[in-house]
């Protein structure tokens, strides 16, 4: 029990206190540990751990092949890919001018070749799949179900259009017309009276048209309805307010959770 539980809890508390209060201490050894060694140690630890992970991956995939589970043929590619990467990493350098160690970031090595022609296209394409997913997600999710969803939709669309060059071409008057129609829907829902709705919409459109002729239809006036300016406002004011609230919540949550670990109130991450 002592080795399995008490020591780990003691390690958390000691290291935690040291790294937390080390921020206030102007003593070279402690400062060095907090600012440099602490994270380096973790990195070293993680680098050892990754061998463990790789072993687990190999075990799972080889089991699949040996037991001929469904899709075992594909596991051959996983094992093969891993072995190829390890060979490029530890056995064949491919460029004698570069030292071992520098070969993982240097030019002309097998490792670099693997990075450029296998790793890069795979990860960049996987990332690019998101362009499609984000389109289908917005298609499905941006529905005017309730007021909150509508806000999400409107702010999303304004940012999407206002941020790109085409937004500059969209006249503020067009947006104004749309806004009046949109408010018309709200008015209709609020009063449930066709006459009021009709009066509002026709009146609004008429007034806008008169104002438009009077002002000569400038693209970026009234500024409130010009997408590039409107998106800048949304992005700088309401967006920041919301983001800041979440940010502070997260900050507090992380602080409180960290303190719970350091003080040993929460210790289930090592099993209780």
């Amino acid at each position: 029990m002592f080795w399995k539980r008490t020591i780990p809890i003691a390690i958390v508390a000691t290291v935690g206190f040291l790294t937390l209060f080390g921020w206030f201490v102007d003593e070279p050894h402690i400062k060095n540990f907090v600012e440099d060694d602490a994270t380096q140690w973790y990195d070293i630890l993680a680098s050892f751990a990754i061998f463990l992970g790789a072993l687990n991956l190999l075990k799972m995939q080889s089991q699949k092949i040996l037991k001929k589970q469904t899709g075992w043929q594909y596991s051959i590619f996983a094992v093969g890919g891993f072995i190829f990467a390890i060979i490029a990493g530890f056995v064949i350098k491919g460029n004698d001018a570069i030292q071992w160690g520098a070969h993982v970031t240097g030019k002309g090595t097998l490792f670099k070749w693997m990075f450029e022609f296998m790793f890069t296209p795979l990860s960049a394409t996987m990332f690019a799949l998101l362009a499609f997913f984000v389109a289908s997600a917005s298609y499905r999710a941006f529905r005017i179900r309730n007021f909150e969803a509508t806000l999400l939709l409107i702010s999303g669309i304004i940012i999407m259009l206002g941020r790109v060059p085409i937004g500059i071409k969209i006249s503020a008057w067009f947006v104004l017309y749309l806004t009046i129609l949109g408010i018309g829907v709200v008015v209709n829902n609020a009063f449930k009276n066709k006459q009021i709705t009709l009066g509002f919409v026709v009146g609004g459109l008429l007034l806008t048209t008169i104002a438009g002729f009077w002002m000569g239809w400038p693209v970026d006036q009234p500024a409130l309805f010009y997408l590039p300016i409107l998106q800048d406002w949304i992005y700088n004011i309401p967006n920041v307010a919301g983001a800041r609230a979440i940010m502070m919540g997260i900050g507090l949550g992380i602080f409180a959770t960290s303190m719970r670990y350091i003080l040993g109130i929460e210790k289930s991450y090592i099993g209780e």
Partner: protein
Amino acid sequence: MKDKQFWIGAGIVIALLMVYYLIGHPFFLSNRTVMLFAILLFSGTLIYYTRLAESGESFFLRDIPGLKAVEEAVGRSTEMGKQVLYVPGIMDMDQVETVAGVIVLGHVAKMTARYETPLNVPVSRAIVMKAGREACRESYLMEGRPDLFQDDMVHYLTDDQFAYAAGVNGIMVREEPAACLYMGKFYAESLILAETGNSIGAIQIAGTASQSQIPFFVTACDYTLIGEEFFAASAYLSQKPELLGGIKGQDMLKAMIVGVILIGSALRVFHDFGWISWDFVNFLTVQ
């Protein structure tokens, strides 16, 4: 003044700090004093409420729908005879979110042990694999079902973000889990996971403090624990008084912060108008 021990302790800490200050505070970075006080005040509040809860005081805590849904999701998987997929984020244990994710995993493992539902936890970091296994093993043991636990429930895929996403994607489309839980720190892969989960019709619950990913989870998942709610999850799920007390303490801190913002606004405006010379902004700028 209910908790005598606490106040005595706090008094001792303050006294020690005073003594330290009076002897010339060696090795102390004095431009960070504000932060030191903030830490002491904040942790003091948290400890106070934790102790209060431990002594039997109970607090009201509102429901978080996403957390109620976790048990439902596990139940549904059981009915359908399918597995539960749990993704503890793509970062390592050096992120507080990941640790929180592993703790929630422990609670989920208790449920799957109770319902005898298969659990599948692909992870992207080996330390998380180790920690996840320990948490699951313990949960299955506590539920009296060590026979159902296997090490390979929690298995490693790869450290790489998108390779991991591709791998989990594959698991989803081929094994078709009925419930997908995403709890941890996420980056761009969040939408790949959530969209694929959606396409296989799984019930999806996400919890994350990765600010930029919350919107995707909100739109693509059935329930999302937003930011701080996620950190409250382990307290809600465990219902342990000391953890619930911490949540109450956090709430008090939020009230305090709102107060400081309001007072600070007044002070700042007074300063801007030249009525007072003390600069609030400068005071809170800690270098």
